[in-house]
């Protein structure tokens, strides 16, 4: 459908495919959404009289590991796109599945972290830091989850062989979303767990 209509485009201002443009516009609103959350966090934290030291509560090494996991998933995602462009179906399917797997393991580690924290008495209602931590990472987690679902869907499509060197749009656009989630985590990791 996108491609059907984008044939009618005269001279696109940015001369990128319609689907990519749409994804970017969507990411714009995503950026603003996380601006609202992260901005509130910054304001609340700077306004607070006391704040726990980094590592005092959170399990920094574990979350660092999680960062590596997500970064790796970004790499595999990039490789998947590359494979699609090169028309290597095998590598494409493998990398998509790998990305989904890495995303899942990120969620699992996060889940373990949540449970662990909760038992230590660090809950969403225990302190302002707790509220911010669970709110921000929670919303990021939801984004990862939806990303994983999207990846599985792409993998299924790839298995049906719908992608080729000429047809890799959806891989690219989903990739944009996935990398965006990665960026968000990089920022969250720094401002929540390290600073």
């Amino acid at each position, binding site marked *: 459908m996108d491609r059907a209509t984008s044939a009618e485009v005269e001279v696109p201002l940015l001369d990128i495919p319609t689907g990519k443009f749409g994804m970017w516009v969507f990411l714009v609103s*995503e950026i*603003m959404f996380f601006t609202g959350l992260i901005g509130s966090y910054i304001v609340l934290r700077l306004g607070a009289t006391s704040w726990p030291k980094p590592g005092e509560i959170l399990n920094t090494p574990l979350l660092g590991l999680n960062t590596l996991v997500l970064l790796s998933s970004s790499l595999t995602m990039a490789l998947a796109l590359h494979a699609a462009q090169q028309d290597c179906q095998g590598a494409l399917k493998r990398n998509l599945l790998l990305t989904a797997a890495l995303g899942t393991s990120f969620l699992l580690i996060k889940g373990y972290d949540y449970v662990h924290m909760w038992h230590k008495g660090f809950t969403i209602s225990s302190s302002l830091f707790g509220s911010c931590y669970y709110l921000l990472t929670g919303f990021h987690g939801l984004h990862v989850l939806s990303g994983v679902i999207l990846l599985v869907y792409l993998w299924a499509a790839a298995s049906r062989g719908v992608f080729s060197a000429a047809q890799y749009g959806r891989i690219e656009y989903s990739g944009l979303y996935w990398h965006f989630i990665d960026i968000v985590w990089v920022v969250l990791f720094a401002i929540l767990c390290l600073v």
Partner: protein
Amino acid sequence: MTTETRLPFWRRYIFSTNHKVIAVQYLFTGITFLALGGLMALLIRWQLAYPWQPVPFIGKLLFAGSGGAVTPEAYPMLFTMHGGIMVFFAITPILLGALGNYTIPLEVGARDMAFPKLNMLSYWFLFVGSSILLVSFLVPGGAAGFGWTIYAPLSASTEVLPGWGQDLFILGLALDAVSILMGGVNYITTIMQLRAPGLTLRRLPLTLWGLFFSAVLNTLWLPIVASALFMVLCDRRLGTAFFLAGPLAPHTGGQVLLFQHLFWGFGHPEVYILILPVWGLVGDLLSVFARKPAFGYKATVWSMFAITILSGIVWGHHMFTSGMNPLVGKAFMVLTVTVSVPTAIFFLNWLGTLWRGAIRLTVPMLFTLGVVFVFAIGGLTGLFNALQTFDVYIHDTYFVVGHFHYTLAASVLFGTFAFIYFWFPKIFGRQMNTRLGQLHFWCSFVFLNAVFSVMMFLGLHGHMRRIADATAYEFLKPVQHWNVFIGWAALGLGLSQLLFFINFLYSLFKGAPTPANPWDAGSLAWTVSSPPPEHNYATPPRVFCGPHEYGVPSLTNGDWLSQTDPQAAKLARS
């Protein structure tokens, strides 16, 4: 792609991906909620005119427990739901949902929106959201009662407002926000990417520019308020304290004013989100019915752009009395008055369009001129609110209520009607009754000004907004008769809308069939039949000039050029 004529009914008219069907779905949803919100307004005005008196006729049904009278508990629900419904479920669906969905693909010469499935999803998110809002009336404790501004801590603490109606309101709003964002992605992408050959940005109808900028504002600022809404929900149900402080807060550190910043960070752009499409529509319609090119097209578009930027950095003028840092107050005051420069340019260009025109006073034209008149009042009274020292007096009084009803209710309502009367022939292939339309305009015009101008005088007297009974205050007793006056004027306004509903429904089934282009309009949409074919254009049209080529000299057949008219290449100047 399969032509939808072969699709079953439910795919063609219910879960349709066709932008025209979706637009009509938005239109009917919007009009329904417009009526609902209007009914609430009447209940509010009755309570203010005759405090605690049983509401005639419908009172027994609505407020059985109190013998038909509005109760102190019910009153906040009324004005909360009136505001929420009017802003998010009546005006937004009509002006963005219906106007946007219908005009954008037609006017850019596309077969459909860029993402038709997303478009359908967008409507159904609105549908679910609005249903949740309606359900919230029925839950124990009733609907939301914190005012449409959802100010924390009133909204954020279950100790002061326990009912689930509050949470449902926020949930419904969140879903509506998602719906609007999906729409925004579609509008921006379609306008930027799917323009027909020859349709450069300088040849877009002004309506599309208005819709474009309002979509941009939505994409930028709606997520901000969405994040705030989720934090409010956490505060209510998960024991957090983002916006709670003092005795109500489970733990320290929350900031009450943060919510107001997040809310108005979106809330002020929202004003322009609603008015920008109307401004665009006014620019186009004045040009069509003055048979004259839109005066200063480029200046108008750049003013829209300037306003889009400015609207994002003036929210603080809603918070002059909120206890925020007074140092920033003056900055916000100065920025706010600056908005009047682009606004002035709009008015000058509108008047410039009429100047030496050949004006046809059709019904849509009447409503367009109505917008110019009431928005002049709305815009100018905005200056008063910008002045800190005066604002702290009239803040949260009926002066503010009158002002924003002139901009958001009066202007946007007239814009909505201009849209409907103008596009009805294209959408349904039938004409609306002119006599009824004129009557509808004049009644609305008189009553509307009666209602909202008097509100401002009440505000000057210090009449607070959102109070259920002005007679509780000695200093308001002498002006109570004005509340009675507004009550009856509001009833008149409500009744004159019946003229519209009658006209709309009658014309829908019995109206005279209309030609493809009943208004001699130049833009692309009017080159296709009314109603347009399933997919608008068999082949992408070629565009040779702007949408406002009226009164072209040296034309013998008619006084105007269609955008697809090849001879425009040598005759047109845009």
